[in-house]
């Protein structure tokens, strides 16, 4: 029994040694080859990304993800320029048709929060970023500071 166990252990050791002698170089080879194939790919892909980023305008780059949310980015430029510090604003996305409507338009408020900080959003904000909304629903004391023909407007509720 002892000799059988000894033989079994020896053969197991031989088998293990053979497996590691083959396995380790194979694993290493796969890692080396993968890394060497991936590096040029990565450099190409990152280089393309850098070139693409470099070709953007100043505002395109800042607006970035907002392009898929806000139908007309001029609305936020106007808001940034007009709304004074300390005032609050709200974003109203209505059901009226908006030309250039974006699939993620429902998140306009989220993007406006990011873009317009330190301005604070508030449900009763005097300044209204209206996207396809009905200005008459805001009352009669509303001044339109800017609007486009596609359904976006910057409004101020007076009084």
């Amino acid at each position, binding site marked *: 029994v002892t000799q059988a166990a000894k033989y079994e252990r020896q053969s197991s050791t031989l088998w*293990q040694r053979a497996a*590691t002698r083959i396995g380790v170089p194979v*694993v290493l080879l796969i890692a080396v080859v*993968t890394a060497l194939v991936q590096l040029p790919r990565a450099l190409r892909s990152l280089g393309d*990304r*850098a070139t693409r980023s470099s070709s953007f305008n100043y505002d395109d780059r800042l607006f970035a993800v907002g392009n898929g949310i806000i139908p007309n980015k001029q609305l936020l430029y106007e808001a940034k*320029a007009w709304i004074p510090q300390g005032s609050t604003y709200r974003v109203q996305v209505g059901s009226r048709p908006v030309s250039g409507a974006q699939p993620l338009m429902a998140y306009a408020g989220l993007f406006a929060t990011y873009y317009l900080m330190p301005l604070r959003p508030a449900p009763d904000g005097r300044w209204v970023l209206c996207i396809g909304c009905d200005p008459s629903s805001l009352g009669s004391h509303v001044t339109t500071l800017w609007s486009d023909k596609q359904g976006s407007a910057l409004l101020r509720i007076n009084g």
Partner: protein
Amino acid sequence: MTIAAIAGLFALNLLLLLAGAGVLSAARGWSSWVEFGRLAGLAYLAGAATVGVLLALELMAGVPFGLASILLTALGTLATGSVVGRALGHRLPPMRGAATAHAHGPFLVHAVGMALAAVYLEAQFRAGRLAGLFEWDAMAFWIPKAKALYYFGGLDLEFFKSLPGPSYPPLVPSFEAAAFEFMGSTDSITLHLFFWFTLAGFVATIAGVLATRVRPLLLWATLLFVVLTPVIIDHAVSALADLLLDYFIGAGTLMVVLWLRERRRWQIVLAAIMFSGAVMTKREGLLLTACVVAAALIATWSRRRCDWPPLLLVGALAAVVTIPWRVWLAANGIAGQGPQIGYFGFLHHLDRAWPSLKLTLKVLFDGDYWLVVPPLFLAAIVLAFLADSRTLPLFGVSFFVLATLGCSWMTMSFPDMPITTNASMNPIVRLSGGLVVPMAGLLPLLLERAWPTDIRGRIPAVLLRAPRHQRVGWALVAVVALAYPLTAIAGGAPRFPSTAECAQPATHDGNIQLVFATFDRGAPALALLNRVRKTGFVQAQVIGDACGRLEVAVPGYTTLAGAESAVGEARRVGLNPTLQQG
């Protein structure tokens, strides 16, 4: 987007390195400056974890956030660490002291690895420098939270409560706000480079810590293999918390496995620090830390009497660090950190168990995200077992199984979450990084354990005969590292966009504006608008530009000649407009 902003980020990250030097001094010290250079990555990550956790705790305690609090926290960490280190006998070495521990193997292989890593990091830097903010979570809550810290000097309840992800700890927003402070503005473009520093820090950590423990070919091949996976290539400079979390978990895991082998106190101390950073980075940090600690407990079952107390202490410390944040959340009526259905709510959704596990395995093994890193990791575990190693492979397999189950538990615990790899609906791809990124440190260690002692004769002789003289190696690194930027510059000098781009002089036909003046405020713009309209330019209007300024302008000129004739008319009535491309 300016050189000044990039310089500001360099300064901030240098500060984190200095703070980390203090941590390293207290934990272990260094016997030569060469050794400190080798461990600079580890020091940087330790500094980032420490300063990040302290800044987050200060915010919860109501300490005003600003340049002063950042500097005091970082320099305080450096000073405290240095004092503790001195008390523990960790003296600074002389400037020209000799290195006591040399890098393993031929330096030329290290040099090739460093050169390739440098080129890759340079490419990441170039891609990140002008990257637009396309990351949804960054737009939705990470950066707004950071802006809130920057503008309002603390945890502004209105924003921290109303933004998505209100229960995420404030470490990443603290870093981003610190970056804004150092850059001098809320430059969410250059901010991407902050995350480049963390990638560089992680690569330097793995390389520096393992250089004296693992054959250079094993080290660099596996390290590059992991950092060149598609997820890391695509997201390394994304302004998101996921990879930072993975780096902390990766570095902490490396410290734990080294402690399992070497039993040095500094290793377990640094593991605790890294995991503290991880749990304050994202909620998932606690889950991944628990997986690492549990795997270490399993791997040390036979020595549980002496090994378990320190390991349990590491886990407990990481859990304790989250308590102030939980208290702050509860005090401000914000829902807790766990899943909506509770930690054990998944038991009511067992029908999602197999699909969730299958999803995790798909992400790990289908190659689109992590190439063949997980399969090779499992192969390395088997090889290490075959080479009669026990603790490390047992840790590896336990960690793999627990973290895989942990990732699946996340999908199970949010019943509304679709079972998909679509990153906008299920975070599984990003979460799996917490399992794969630590493999950058585990893979070389496992292969080193499995490395047959008689394989040396099969290594190409040229590698062993390669000159050990470090100057040759460093020259190679310098040449290769310079080649990439020089090639990039050959294609055109780097651009540094500025607000000047909001006003481009008209040079050609098509969409030209006649701009009378630009204002920062509305009242003077309206006054000029009235004056301009009275002079006959009735189509004049106030137009907001991308830089947040107001232009009094007449848009809609299509030819340069027509617009120039309008300039002449305006000058005749005492106005002095310019022409800008719309």
